[in-house]
Each structure stands twice: as C-alpha cells, then as structure tokens.
C-alpha cells in the first residue's frame, strides 16, 4: 500500500504491543528504539521477538528489522491477512500477552482469523484465557464484532511448563460501530470460573466457597463454575486460579482474577480475587480497567461520528495509549468529569470523533 512516509517513532520497551498494533492498523511504519538500552541485559526479550514473529505470520508483507544489539526495531506493516495461524508461545509469558494485540487486529483482517496458541493459559501478568473469553470478547461485541466470535480453551497450562492450548476465532468487519455507553447501571450478577489443574479438584470448590463468603452479601445471583480439566488437557504444571466477572444491568462488566502462588491457600486466592473485584466495581465506569485500551482503540476506529464512553480513572497504560493514538491518528479524546457536581466521583466521560476506519483488507479479497 502506498503510504506517505511518516514513520512513527517511540522509545523504550514499555507499551510495545499497542504501539505495534497502532502501526499495523494505520499502515505507518514504526521505529522503536532504546529498548532496554541501559539494562544489564539489553534488547528484546524472547517473548517480544515471539510476538513480532506472530504478527509477521498473521500479516502479509510485514517487514521487521531488528538491530544487531536488539535495542531498536523497525516494522513496516503489511496487510492483516488473518486465516489459520498456529503459534507456540514462549513460557516466559502467558498466551494473554499474545492474544491481546491479536484481538485488537483480528476484526480488520482480510480473512477471518483462526488462531491457535499454545503455552501458559493463565498467569499473574496478563489476562488469562478465561477473562479473554468471558470479558474481552463481549467488549468486542459492543462494536459489532460478534458473529462467529469464539474462543475455546482446549487445554489448560499453568506456569512454569505450560502445555495449554486455546483457539481464537474472529470474524472480519468492514467498519466498527460507534460506541455510546454512558450508563454504567448496577451490578446484577456475578459470574466466575474456578479451575484447578494437576491438583486436587477440591481446590476449585474451596475457592468458590471463599469467594462466596465475600460476595454473597451483595447479590444472590452468583454462579461460580468449577472447571475441571483432566489428564492430557490439564497441561504440564499444577496450578489453580479464580476469575470473576461482575455484570451490570446495562451490560457494563468488571473483572478480576487471582492465580495460584506457591504457599498460598485456595481460600486466600479467592479472597484476593473477590476483593480485587470489589475494588474494580467501586472504581466505576462502564468499562473494566484492563479493557480501557481495547475500547478506546475501537472508539478511535469507529465511524465518523462522536463516540462516548464513561470510564473510571485511566490506568498508566491508558494514558500512554491516548498519547500514542494522538501521535498515530491525530485523534484526541475529550475527557471531562462525568458528573461535575459530584467532586468525589472519579468517573470520566471520554468522547472522540471516530476516524471512520474502513477495513480495506477485506474489500481487496
């Protein structure tokens, strides 16, 4: 594609994923330098290289140049091809690390994406496969990406050895819908998935019991599912986790999860997850904190109309993302307190004029 030569320039190893996504979506080459240049162990990490490989495989015509020291990369994006992609994730990061950018790109591919990822399905750094399935995908549906959107957790794999496998199916869209989501509603139900692999299946029941002790006071509609994977499907390492999701009357979702650590009882894991969920609910807004970036990204790409969304306080990632979006598309959000009369409220109203991004890849097919 002929593009005016305007190279996006970023520094540092942080926020690599959304910067690569912005580059690929906008078609602008991106140069990222000073990647851990002051570190004892400079340059890209194995998982970052692996992510670049995955992006290369899911696109067509992408050129990636990595400097000799690995402290600078130049990515010239091609088109997002989609189709069937298989990727083995390194064990240093969970599959969530790789899925999150793919979720942002997949709706704009040429062909529907069928992505199979192997590795660790839940860890404490990135969204687990459960949360991506139960929370991230419904967030995509807000923008009209729904028909055929699916994720299957075929095998679970805990750290450190992994052995899990998930399959992500995503349809393509021509254009995403403009979002207008300003009523957060009230929490009407809580759902959760407790899973335990290669440990006593009783662990997930213990987690459910403990989570209920905190959450039952608020609402009777709590359904916590105990997900049991046996034999081959349970991966190579023992582990357990609880992911929780609070859904409001207007469909706003908030999520939290906690993953097993050595020497921590299932009860404590469940308490951590439940309390984190309460903190999340208290922060307010229509969108879960961990999904602010995804939602704002889709708002920028929306049709040429004003999209509005109420959010809680932005995370550091969100702030950086807003700046990077401004650099890439020139779009800036209008951010005002959603309720100016109430000084205690931290809820903010984000609005922006969509760029009217049209999936040109699809029409080429």
């Amino acid at each position, binding site marked *: 594609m002929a593009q005016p030569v305007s190279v996006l320039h970023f520094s540092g190893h942080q926020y690599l994923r959304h910067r690569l996504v912005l580059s690929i979506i906008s078609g602008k080459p991106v140069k990222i330098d000073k990647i851990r240049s002051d570190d004892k162990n400079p340059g890209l990490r194995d998982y970052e290289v692996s992510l670049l490989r995955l992006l290369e495989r899911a696109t067509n015509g992408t050129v990636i140049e990595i400097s000799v020291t690995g402290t600078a990369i130049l990515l010239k994006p091609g088109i997002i091809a989609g189709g069937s992609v298989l990727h083995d994730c390194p064990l240093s990061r969970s599959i969530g690390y790789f899925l*999150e950018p793919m979720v942002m790109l997949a709706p704009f591919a040429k062909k529907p994406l069928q992505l199979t990822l192997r590795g660790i399905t839940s860890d404490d*750094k990135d969204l687990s496969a459960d949360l991506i399935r139960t929370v991230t995908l419904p967030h995509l549906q807000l923008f009209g990406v729904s028909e055929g959107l699916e994720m299957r957790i075929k095998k679970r794999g805990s750290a450190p050895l992994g052995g899990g496998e998930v399959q992500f199916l995503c349809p393509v869209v021509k254009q995403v819908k403009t979002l207008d989501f300003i009523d957060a509603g009230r929490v009407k139900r809580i759902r959760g998935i407790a899973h335990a692999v290669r440990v006593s299946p009783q662990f997930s029941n213990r987690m459910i019991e403990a989570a209920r002790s905190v959450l039952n006071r608020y609402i009777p509609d709590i359904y916590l599912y105990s997900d049991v994977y046996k034999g081959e499907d349970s991966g190579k390492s023992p582990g357990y986790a609880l992911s929780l999701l609070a859904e409001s009357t207007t469909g706003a979702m908030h999520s939290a999860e906690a993953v097993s650590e050595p020497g921590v009882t299932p009860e404590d894991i469940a308490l951590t997850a439940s309390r984190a969920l309460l*903190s999340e609910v208290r922060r307010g807004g229509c969108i879960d904190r961990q999904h602010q970036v995804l939602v704002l990204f889709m708002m920028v790409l929306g049709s040429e109309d004003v999209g509005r969304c109420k959010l809680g306080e932005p995370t550091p990632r969100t702030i950086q993302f807003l700046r990077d979006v401004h650099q890439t598309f020139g779009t800036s959000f209008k951010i005002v307190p959603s309720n100016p009369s109430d000084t205690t409220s931290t809820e903010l109203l984000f609005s922006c004029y969509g760029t009217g991004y049209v999936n040109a890849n699809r029409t080429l097919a």
Partner: protein
Amino acid sequence: AQSAYQEHSRRRRKDWMKLIYVSSLTPEQILHGDPSSTDLQNQDEDDFFTIRSKGTVAGGTEEDLDVTKEKVKLEDLKEWENEELLDSIRHLFITGGSGT
C-alpha cells in the same frame, strides 16, 4: 476571575486533557503525583530531565514488564476486611436499595 476559577477547579480535580496531551509527565506521575497547578507548571519547565530519569533509567535498573494486569497489592485489599467499607458500595448493586 476566570483564571481564578480555573485554578480552583484544577485543584479540586485533575485536568485530564491537559495532563495527557499537553504535559510531558509520565503516566505514573499523572496518576500519583500531586496535580496542583503550581506543581504542574514547575514540571512543565524541567520535564526534559524528569522524563529521562523516570522513564529510561529507572526502567533499566528494575525490570518493569509490559503487563496488562496491575499487580494487586495485598495491603490495599486489606481494607475490604472493614464492614463499613463493604457496605459502602452496596448502592452499586441492584439489591442495594434506593441509591438513586
């Protein structure tokens, strides 16, 4: 009078658009720093140095990963042992009586 009003409102509440698009504070500084107006102006003048020390050098000494989930601080969650706090968010649930 208008500037006084603006200053007043800024002290009360962060001006997110200015902090994000105009200032060059790091995201962490925006969230945790003191956003009072005088502080902001000081930062604006010497942010050339602040950014560098905060952003790159600190990142080099301690590995801060590109993570989606924020580290949950167990101390922060301790507050939920308090019954009053647990009750204080009842209005956010449908069963929580008349909040509106």
